[in-house]
């Protein structure tokens, strides 16, 4: 392996694994810190076994201003000096690496499991057992009454950040919540209504996806992608398709590229509309709650009009799509979208015209631009804090290379900002779909796709409705996945929710939570 310059990529470019420099750890660390200082973000940071006793760490650094991705790597044994004290963005990634591969980031300030599963070594990937067990490791050597050598892994059984003082109390919520939502555990440190800190403990949804993707692609790969985060079926499956198409040098027909983008925007429309309805619901403003709940379904039904499934399952496949739009169907899509635009506009404008709604949204759950930047937040949440980041503009793939959607951002970082950014995106997505339908290219919707190139790496980004989805695939000598790393936008953003709750009233948690609306299974994988 050469130890030369880092590999620069555009979204969807591939690189030979041998060309990715294996830097010394000091150089690896320096390159990451330098890139962050120059405004880049960590889009991915993950490990992969190398030989019998080492782990190769890969970092995917995204430079939004340049639209450039940098891929660098280094090799470590069972421990390395943690990046987190110098770079907060790395904190969750390093906990993931420690849990997956049993390596210890020395000096990590809060080293705990994030998913509560056995290390990938222990679950039989053919690599020897590891020396470091995160499940038997407690920060600051505290065990809080827990058996320090517990043999079973129990989700959420760990020491939490805690406070002492008169009338300080702890509130624990979950994993089973009051509504119809996924499970997760929230631990609040409060004084009366005032929240000092919220710690979020996940992993309840862990289904072993990344472990099972190794050796693929196979016939289960697509169902995995379609259910990574079921509300983001199109976003994740598109990232996957574009990754394997790059590895197989497959050119997707223009018509398929456009229809894929329409499906991605319909997914955004359904979810943003649903979120605005649920935000209205959480402050008891029922007209918008009721209308948006229904209109969300109208958008889902447009996806079902195209492919028969409301979430877009069965639509995307490597090489293109499985369902085309005939003229009658296109006309119906346009008519129903026109009606939905009218309905959603009427329903959402009620929010901005109602002073009681604005009073509840404004100043609730603020995330400053500095915090968002420091934590590497993405998507709606980042844009609502004034960060102009959108994969569709900075790392465009498919038809987004030719048809741009303006970035929607707002400055205040509050619940209002996250709601208003969603509303701007709703309008722009609808306009985009109409533009695309007006100029729908003719031709086939699927191309043949061959085998994947061996020993290569690819990074594939899409802008899901929550934010940046990052898939990194590494192939082995046979062109099968040696590693398939998934970063759902929620992976970056859960810590943002914790920060948004600081200094808030605990009764505002449902509202703040909904304004993020993060994925549990997308995080837990």
């Amino acid at each position, binding site marked *: 392996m050469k130890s030369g310059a880092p590999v620069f990529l555009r979204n969807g470019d591939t690189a030979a694994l041998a060309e990715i420099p294996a830097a010394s750890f000091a150089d690896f660390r320096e390159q990451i810190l330098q890139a962050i200082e120059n405004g880049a973000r960590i889009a991915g940071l993950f490990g992969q076994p190398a030989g019998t006793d080492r782990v190769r760490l890969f970092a995917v650094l995204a430079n939004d201003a340049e639209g450039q991705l940098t891929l660098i790597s280094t090799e470590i044994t069972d421990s390395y000096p943690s990046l987190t004290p110098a770079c907060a963005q790395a904190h969750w990634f390093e906990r993931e690496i420690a849990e997956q591969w049993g390596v210890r980031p020395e000096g990590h300030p809060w080293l705990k499991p994030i998913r509560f599963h056995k290390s990938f070594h222990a679950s039989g990937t053919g690599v020897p057992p590891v020396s470091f067990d995160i499940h038997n490791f407690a920060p600051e050597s505290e065990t809080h009454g827990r058996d320090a050598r517990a043999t079973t892994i129990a989700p959420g059984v760990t020491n939490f950040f805690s406070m002492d003082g008169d009338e300080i109390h702890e509130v624990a919520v979950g*994993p089973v919540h009051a509504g119809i939502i996924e499970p997760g555990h929230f631990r609040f440190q409060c004084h009366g209504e005032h929240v000092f800190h919220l710690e979020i403990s996940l992993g*309840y949804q*862990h289904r072993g996806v990344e472990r*099972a993707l190794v050796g693929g692609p196979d016939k289960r790969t697509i169902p995995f992608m379609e*259910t990574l985060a079921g509300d983001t079926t199109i976003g994740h499956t598109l990232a996957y398709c574009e990754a394997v198409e790059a590895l197989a040098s497959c050119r997707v027909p223009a018509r398929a590229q456009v229809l894929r983008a329409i499906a991605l925007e319909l997914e955004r429309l359904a979810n943003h509309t649903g979120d605005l309805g649920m935000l209205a619901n959480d402050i008891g403003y029922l007209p918008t709650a009721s209308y948006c709940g229904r209109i969300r379904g109208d958008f889902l039904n447009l996806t079902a009009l195209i492919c028969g499934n409301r979430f877009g399952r069965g639509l995307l496949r490597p090489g293109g799509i499985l369902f085309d739009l005939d003229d009658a169907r296109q006309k119906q899509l346009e008519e129903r979208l026109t009606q939905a635009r*009218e309905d959603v506009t009427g329903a959402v*404008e009620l929010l901005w015209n109602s002073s009681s709604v604005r009073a509840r949204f404004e100043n609730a759950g603020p995330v400053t631009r500095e915090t968002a930047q420091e934590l590497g937040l993405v998507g709606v949440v980042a844009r609502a804090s004034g960060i102009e980041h959108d994969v569709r503009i900075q790392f465009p793939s498919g038809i987004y290379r030719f048809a741009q959607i303006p970035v929607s951002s707002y400055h205040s970082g509050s619940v209002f900002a996250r709601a208003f950014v969603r509303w701007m995106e709703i309008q722009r997505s609808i306009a985009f779909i109409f533009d695309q339908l007006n100029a729908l290219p003719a031709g086939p919707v699927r191309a043949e796709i061959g085998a994947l190139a061996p020993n290569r790496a690819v990074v594939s980004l899409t802008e899901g409705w929550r934010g940046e989805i990052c898939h990194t695939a590494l192939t082995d000598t046979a062109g099968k996945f040696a590693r398939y790393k998934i970063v759902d936008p929620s992976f970056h953003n859960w810590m943002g929710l914790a920060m948004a709750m600081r200094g808030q009233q605990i009764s505002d948690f449902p509202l703040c939570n909904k304004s993020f609306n993060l994925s549990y*299974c997308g995080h837990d994988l």
Partner: protein
Amino acid sequence: MLKVLLARAQQKYRTVGFPKEPPVLPDRLRGRPQVDSAKCPPNCSVCADVCPTEAISIKDKSLRLDLGRCLFCPECERACPEGAIRFTPEHRLAASKRDALVLGEKEFQLAKALDEKSRKIFGRSLKLRQVSAGGCNGCEADVNVLNTVVFDLGRFGIQFVASPRHADGLLITGPVTQNMELALRKTYEAVPSPKLIIAVGACAISGGPYIGHAEQKNGADGVVPVDIYIPGCPPHPITILDGLLRLLGRIE
């Protein structure tokens, strides 16, 4: 206030006519598949070969399709050169017994209504606690949508409640991850008896795409007893509603 009233007029009345009227469904909906072994060429197994969840098996030259494992993806239908498997727009999929979900052997038996005594208890007021145990938020979303004005679940006396102690039963989604097993058991125990358990979606019935993974339990019925299975990935909201109403004996 005037704007609120104007908006109300603009949004109109949008509750579906189902179950009094037939449901309006997308024409490309992949509902209950039709299996016709007579069309199978000898020694052909392309459908079984492409199925991601081994839902299709071939026994004594006859096709079996397990709706409990089926993701209703288009792969088998597209692969079959003879049209031996064809998805129909039939939305009614719920069954009372796990083995009733296997198509091909005998006629599909829709879920039966509860007996007289249970219907007296639950028939006019059913309170459910939903537990997502590894669900991808697809089933959860299409259960949640039943609460909107479109389906208006409340008109049938069915309601999702916040506490298992207020509930008459559980509606379970997801393959039941190892990490949710204990929480599901505890939630089940917290529901007062008699209780109904509803498994929604391929994951909750069989593990779905995650069948066989060590991180999950291959569905709910290995953990708690299940009274009705509603297949799909995810099932269409009308399919879920049909299953609930069928269980309560409110549609024939």
